């Protein structure tokens, strides 16, 4: 199992909170990006222990060096069809802010691509999809080499009440 640990800098500057380094990953046909600062490590898919009475996108829990952390399948969370895990499937361990402090959660994605540095000029606001399309998860969009990367607000994606299954899903 390959792992990559990313150190968190002391302070996340909020000057332009969206500019900075992003880790991009693929999910279906789309490319998503999350702030590198939130990523603790990336690992291959390992045995996941299912936990009953949790929403379907919560795949279960894994052992992260002695700590038990929950794992969420981002495909299912976003309503995409479930697929077989492959060699490229990764668990990105992110640290999110929740009500009672920092929580580590594993996120299953199809494949991890690269780390990009995005200038504030490259980031566009999420277009207005009209009423009915909620975009609370999205920080914005970035167009890099003709491909659109969707910038995710991972705190909102994994908001605790959602993981508990009381949220919108």
């Amino acid at each position, binding site marked *: 199992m390959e792992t990559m640990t990313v150190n968190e800098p002391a302070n996340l500057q909020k000057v332009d909170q969206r500019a900075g380094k992003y880790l991009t990953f693929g999910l279906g046909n789309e490319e998503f990006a999350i702030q590198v600062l939130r990523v603790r490590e990336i690992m291959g898919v390992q045995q996941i222990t299912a936990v009953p009475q*949790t929403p379907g996108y919560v795949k279960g829990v894994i052992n992260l060096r*002695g700590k*038990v*952390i*929950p794992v969420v399948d981002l495909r299912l969370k976003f309503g995409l069809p479930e697929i077989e895990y492959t060699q490229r499937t990764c668990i990105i361990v992110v640290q999110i802010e929740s009500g009672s402090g920092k929580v580590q959660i594993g996120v299953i994605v199809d494949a991890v691509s690269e780390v990009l540095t995005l200038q504030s000029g490259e980031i566009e606001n999420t277009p207005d999809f009209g009423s009915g399309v909620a975009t609370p998860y999205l920080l914005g969009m970035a167009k890099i080499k003709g491909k659109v990367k969707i910038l995710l607000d991972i705190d909102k994606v994994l908001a605790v009440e959602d993981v508990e299954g009381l949220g919108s899903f």
Partner: protein
Amino acid sequence: MPSQSDQLPAVSDKPVSAPATNPLANDPELLGDFILESREHLTSIELQLLTLDQDPGNAEAIHAVFRGFHTIKGMAGFLDLDAVRDVAHEVETILDLARNSQLAITSLVIDRVLESKDYLSRWMAALEAMLQSGKTPSVADPAALVSAIRELANPAGTATQVTVSLPSATAPVATTSELGGKFLLAPEEPAPAETPTNGLLDLARELASAPPDLAPEPSAAPVASENPEASRATEGRAANARSIKVDTAKLDYLVDMVGEMVIAQSLVNHDPDLHAAEKPRLARNLSQLARITDEVQRTAMSMRMIPVGQLFQKTARLVRDLSRKASKQVDLELSGEDTELDRNIVEELADPLMHMVRNAVDHGIETGAERVRAGKSATATVTLKAGHQAGHIVIQVSDDGRGLDCKKILKKARAAGLVEPDEQPSESDIFNLIFHPGLSTAEKITDVSGRGVGMDVVRKQVQKLRGRIEVQSTPGQGTTFLMKLPLTLAIIDGLVVGVGDQRYIMPIFAVREMLKPAEEAISTIQGRQEMAMVRGALLPLIRLHQRFGVNPRFEKPWESLLIVSESGGKQFCLMVDELIGKQEVVIKGLGETMRNIAGVAGGAILGDGRVGLILDLEGLFGAGEETGRHE
């Protein structure tokens, strides 16, 4: 320097000893805490005083010193250490004046406060010596010191003496030499060795005290000669290192990590590749590693352990008060107080234990006259016993009273509708009824107990601690409650069971037996609720795979394994595919995102590094017909 000693009035040669009448003062646990805490305060007092010496106007430092003495005074008063309390009180008075700018902090004031601090340190050393050797502490009468401190409040006296006081930097040294001459009553006193200055202090004291004839106190000389020089030095240095305060979160983390280490070690140890190698040196080193890991684990665990004696001590007071109130003569006998238990368990156990002792004195024990009539000694005995038994701690609360009255309990139970009129439960079943909510054996409500709540709460609490409680009783001879508790809450002895491709851990204390039932032992009620006949009792059958929504290997109960489990006094059968093994696991929370899942108490890392879920049987049994998510 000897001229300095003129400032202090002569010390009375009557040593003060700790009064032996106060039970609190004789509690070594409390005294130990007092010593530890006071030493901390004294250390900080000294540092603050040295700050004040440099900067007499430092209000924060004055406050800090004041607080320190105030706390010590309070604790000393509690423990009947009058001399300590008086000195602390006088110093507090002076500091209060200083706080309110009615007294200037001069070197002399600091000298006196430091002297007081040293006097208190002496007391701590003497008390500690008493704890270790049992000898009565013998420390100088504080009268001289007290009057010396009082003099400070007199401005005229202060004015004349300021002129003779030394420059600030050397003041503490002068003070100590003074003490060496005057207060040399416990020369073995270990000086806190936390600041470099103390080296000087020690030296000065030693120099001053070396010729015994310098000490005007006659009783001091023999004490001094009893103590070899070497022990003095080591004692002084070790005094502060004997115990430290550690954040419990850190300890928990350590215990956690050690648990992981044990698992990792066992993984390595059982690695087939290593065994295939058949290298004797490797095998030797591996077993060495296993031993060390084991030792580390035990040590880590022991750090959270505290002796159960503390808990027992608390009941002593209760027994005295209760017996007086009920006009009964009761002796409390304690044994096994050294038995150590996880701190959390000891804390959680306090209430149930108190309750059982209360019950014993109030219900269990007869009045003196009744006892004499029954041919027993008028003085009853309540015994608290703790000990190890098969990896558990057993705490026993027994009395030699009248014992449980089967008939009375049964009558009450029938009246409460707990037992059918024609039912004839066995004696142990009847005894177990006292754990039922709403049943109490007290005939009338007394001030102390008998409100009908009691043993059910006790049982609940014990079960929460993953323990078990049993009652034995012989009419006319007494009642005994046995509490069987795990050594720690961090680790649980579990049965690893498999359902489909999932593995779960069942707490072993809840498992009664395991069996493969015969086909005809399974029946259904209204075609839905399945029951299994086990040893003549019909028990509800719960299919774990159904509850948790996993695909089992066996659908038929007679092909799978039934685990007869107990939760909340009720038995049921849990159907699983197979038994995989027995393992000690470190309990981990699943995090706040998955805190309240019915039937899951937590997670644990299994031998292969995967996470297994620890089953919460109460939740499983209670959680109706909910099904999991995997259809």
